[in-house]
């Protein structure tokens, strides 16, 4: 960092954005997307651009490279890169700039790499285009250097591979290597870790942090994840509806956010350390682009807005050194907020009703292998999930967490009757439930409802909301006409939507609204158990926190039990009574949320928890994650599925003998060869910020 800091002092501004205003042509008129954004970026500095989807952060960041979406225009302002206006450069000059002096790391590495070209060749091509490195041999040498710089194993062999032979995390490393190939002064990163697992994300962030120290490039990091920017950037710009509303150094922004939107945004982020947030600060309402006032664009959603806020446009004004806020009431807000803050404290979960299990899953195994059904199959089919045993009690939220490919969704789909189990038992209210939907009773189909991940695909785009929500009413209760309409209205009210939504099509709704409609559709069947498969992962944080609140309220009102599937450990903590941790198709730890999120941890739980970038405190990465190869073989060779990646591996015993279940008391079980007190000790040694605090209060005796 010293080299970077020295460079920064010598020449303060690498990029200067001055009053940048960009419009998109949509629905036969110009719609403003970026509104008079002004900021500067020093050499070697890392700026995070955060905001909810559609706030213009990506458009702003891409404009730095002279990228402009077709059908858009820069109405006003200038982007000066090292003194030259990028918007005025010719195509040829832009080509010289891009990749050479400023480069891009896009969101999806799979589409950023050419599928038919070897990794090494792609790296060399980038250099050859910009005439970096004199000869081909020199470029080859440099490409190998880059590959090892991004910590990919065995540079020679990796260079000879095709993109599809690498995992998502490895592909992103290659894209980063490509971005660095010509030693650029600026790297723009557009949500580079959004599609990746937490552990992979932690590795990429760690890599970027180290590359910055080594290379000293400036970075603009676009993301919706505040935890990520907290761990990697020097400064953060918060955007709302095209406005840059706050620009401040990281520590200052998180400790003392000044703009009401920033306050709400930070409060909305669920964290592992403090799962039950103060809901008084949570953002209310939604960004409605068609209803923006001429003044402050945030005014309609702001708790502190006065009449004048709606009239006067706000500009970014300094409130401290290197800290600027676009709010005319910035000095009063701390005082105003102090009054309201205590009104509604943290609302913890209502304890679940103790009692008989609603859903019991015993030794479940599921396979996608079709040959399993034929008795002639020569070898036993590969099970995607094995030996899964857990139960969900009435009015309880049981969560399954794990990385992608761990089999979380497979379990939900089997419970929902979409997949036939290979072995094991499923019982609902004490009765055995038939394997698939076709042979289940109507009552059972009604009582177990499914809500799925993607709000874009979960609703039929050709049906109005009333048809979507009304269908289960018709199917299960035979409701028609007026009775049906009244019930639809009640359901929409239940999910906090206005009755007018009944006549709309899904493409007229926002992501959060669509997910509410999907929940209303499930609710229409009056279920006892709702299977929620990653239903929050595609939503913005503020919307996420609204839906979490909705789920909790519905649980109270309707006595629902949830089987909640997620990879987001913070969200899971906020709404689960009990948690099961899944790795490569096997459960490795089950317990109440408090038990699982505190030591003793299963080594995998520990790895997951330490990989989550958190706003509070410095995230310290355990060495375990750094050495983690990041490639999980889909089929475990060892007796313990986690043995290959385990930082605390005991020895050959892990590969040969299946680890025993250990009782940690109070229903908390985990599966490891290490005894509990040893796990406890190791967890404390690694001083994982989040868990360690709570470990003091927890009873360490197993």
């Amino acid at each position, binding site marked *: 960092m010293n080299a970077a800091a020295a460079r920064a002092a010598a020449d303060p501004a690498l990029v200067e954005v001055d009053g940048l205003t960009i419009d998109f042509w949509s629905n*036969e008129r110009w719609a403003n997307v970026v509104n008079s954004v002004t900021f500067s970026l020093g050499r070697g500095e890392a700026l995070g651009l955060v905001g909810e989807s559609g706030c213009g952060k990506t458009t702003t960041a891409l404009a730095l490279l002279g990228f402009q979406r077709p059908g858009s225009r820069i109405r006003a302002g200038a982007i000066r890169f090292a003194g030259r206006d990028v918007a005025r450069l010719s195509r040829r000059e832009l080509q010289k700039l891009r990749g050479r002096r400023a480069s891009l790391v896009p969101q999806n590495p799979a589409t950023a790499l050419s599928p038919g070209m070897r990794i090494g060749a792609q790296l060399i091509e980038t250099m050859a285009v910009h005439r970096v490195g004199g000869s081909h041999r020199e470029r080859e040498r440099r490409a190998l250097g880059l590959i090892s710089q991004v910590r990919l194993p065995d540079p020679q062999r990796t260079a000879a591979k095709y993109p599809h032979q690498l995992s998502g995390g490895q592909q992103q490393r290659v894209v980063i290597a490509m971005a660095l190939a010509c030693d650029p002064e600026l790297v723009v990163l557009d949500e580079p870790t959004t599609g990746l697992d937490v552990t992979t994300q932690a590795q990429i962030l760690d890599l970027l942090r180290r590359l910055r120290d080594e290379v000293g490039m400036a970075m603009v990091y676009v993301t919706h994840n505040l935890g990520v920017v907290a761990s990697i950037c020097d400064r953060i710009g918060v955007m709302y509806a095209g406005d840059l509303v706050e620009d401040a150094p990281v520590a200052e922004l998180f400790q003392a956010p000044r703009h009401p939107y920033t306050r709400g945004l930070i409060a909305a982020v669920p964290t592992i350390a403090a799962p039950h947030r103060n809901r008084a600060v949570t953002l209310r309402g939604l960004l409605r682009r068609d209803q923006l006032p001429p003044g402050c664009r945030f005014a309609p959603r702001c708790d502190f807005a006065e009449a004048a806020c709606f009239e006067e446009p706000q500009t970014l004004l300094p409130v401290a050194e290197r800290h600027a806020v676009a709010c005319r009431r910035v000095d009063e807000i701390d005082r105003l907020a102090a009054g309201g803050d205590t009104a509604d404290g943290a609302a913890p979960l209502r304890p679940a009703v103790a009692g008989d299990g609603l859903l019991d899953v015993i030794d479940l195994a599921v396979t996608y292998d079709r040959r399993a059904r034929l008795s002639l199959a020569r070898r036993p089919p590969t099970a995607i999930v094995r030996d899964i045993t857990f139960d969900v009690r009435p009015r309880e939220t049981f969560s399954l967490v794990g990385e992608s490919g761990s089999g979380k969704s497979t379990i939900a789909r089997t419970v*929902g*009757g*979409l997949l036939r189990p290979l072995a094991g038992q499923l019982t609902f209210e004490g009765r055995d439930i038939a394997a698939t*939907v*076709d042979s*289940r009773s*109507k009552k059972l*189909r009604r009582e*177990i*409802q*499914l*809500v*799925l*991940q*993607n709000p874009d*695909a*979960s*609703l*039929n*785009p*050709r*049906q109005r909301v009333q*048809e*979507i929500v009304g*269908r*289960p009413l018709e*199917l299960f209760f035979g409701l028609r006409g007026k009775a049906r309409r009244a019930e639809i209205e009640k359901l929409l009210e239940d999910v906090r939507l206005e009755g007018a939504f009944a*006549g*709309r*099509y899904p493409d*007229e709704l926002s992501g959060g609204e669509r997910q509410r409609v*999907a929940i209303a*559709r499930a609710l229409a*069947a009056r279920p006892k158990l709702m299977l929620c498969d990653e239903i929050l992962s595609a939503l913005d944080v503020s919307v996420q926190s609204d839906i979490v609140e909705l789920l909790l309220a519905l649980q109270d009102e309707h006595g629902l039990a949830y089987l909640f599937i997620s990879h987001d450990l913070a969200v899971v903590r906020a709404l689960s009574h009990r948690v099961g941790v899944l790795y490569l198709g096997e459960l490795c730890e089950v317990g109440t949320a408090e038990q699982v999120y505190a030591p003793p941890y299963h080594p995998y739980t520990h790895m997951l928890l330490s990989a989550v970038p958190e706003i509070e405190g410095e995230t310290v990465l355990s060495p375990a994650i750094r050495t983690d190869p990041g490639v999980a073989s889909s089929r475990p060779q060892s007796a313990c599925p986690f043995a290959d990646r385990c930082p605390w591996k005991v020895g050959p015993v892990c590969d040969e003998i299946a680890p025993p279940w250990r009782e940690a008391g109070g229903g908390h079980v985990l599966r490891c060869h290490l005894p509990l007190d040893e796990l406890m000790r190791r967890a404390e040694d690694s001083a994982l910020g989040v868990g360690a605090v709570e470990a003091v209060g927890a009873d360490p005796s197993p």
Partner: protein
Amino acid sequence: MATTALAVSAPTRRAGVRRFLRRFTLSARVAAVVLLLYGLIALTGPLWAPYSPFATGSVPFGGGSWTHLFGTDILGRDVFSRVVYGTRNVLYLSLTSTLLALLVGGAIGLASGLVGGWVDELLMRAFETIISIPLLVLALLAIAAAGPKLAGSSLLLILVVLLVYAPRIARMARTVAVDLVTRDYVTVARARGESVASIVWRELTPNAAGVLLVEFGVRAGYAPILISSLGFLGFGAQPPSPEWGLMISENRVAIVTAPLSVLAPAGALAVLVISLNLVTDGVARVLGRSVTRTP
């Protein structure tokens, strides 16, 4: 959206219609007008056609004149009147048969894609077998198999077109369905225990409508050719029907001496087919789909 659409005043609505029309290419708009003309002729033709299509009596192969606009045919019948009457014939046969093929093929294809497994395999292999037989050969086989009793009837022609087109449409519909069934809303409908028919009708059909519409256009554009080809070969409409293919066949001996008697029905057929295709192209472009033409 719907409520605002009702609230807008008449001039804006007219502007909306104009904007909608402007999305179609000029050729598609012209072709649409031509098709409307064909429709009008088919509906009202018999009211104003100068002669009966069956009335003989004039000189055979008389050239074009004010009394016989397109001249007379081999039996001395008025070619213009026969072309006008034939419009109704050709349009009725090709549209009903294509529509029927769309309904049957579309339903089977969507259901097959949804159900999957061996049912899907079996149906698709059977359809591929049918598709692999050349169009006309298959049609002639079917007509021969139907026997002489049905020969030349409209019902037989419609069924033949159905047999030829339904498998092709089914394959197209299945391709669409295979993609659609992976969507979450179909998964949710399955988990709710909806029947195959219900999922096909509620979830798949509305989303496949665009593709099926284009497919209908393409097939409807070829149906007149198929029907006229059969007529020309003597396996379609039987004399004295004023079917265009049959007319071309009857009068082809005079192609040099009285060319109008052949060119008039041929031209009518060509203009119809071209217009149908241009409109389909225009619709496909507006829907953002590509047209694959496999006759």
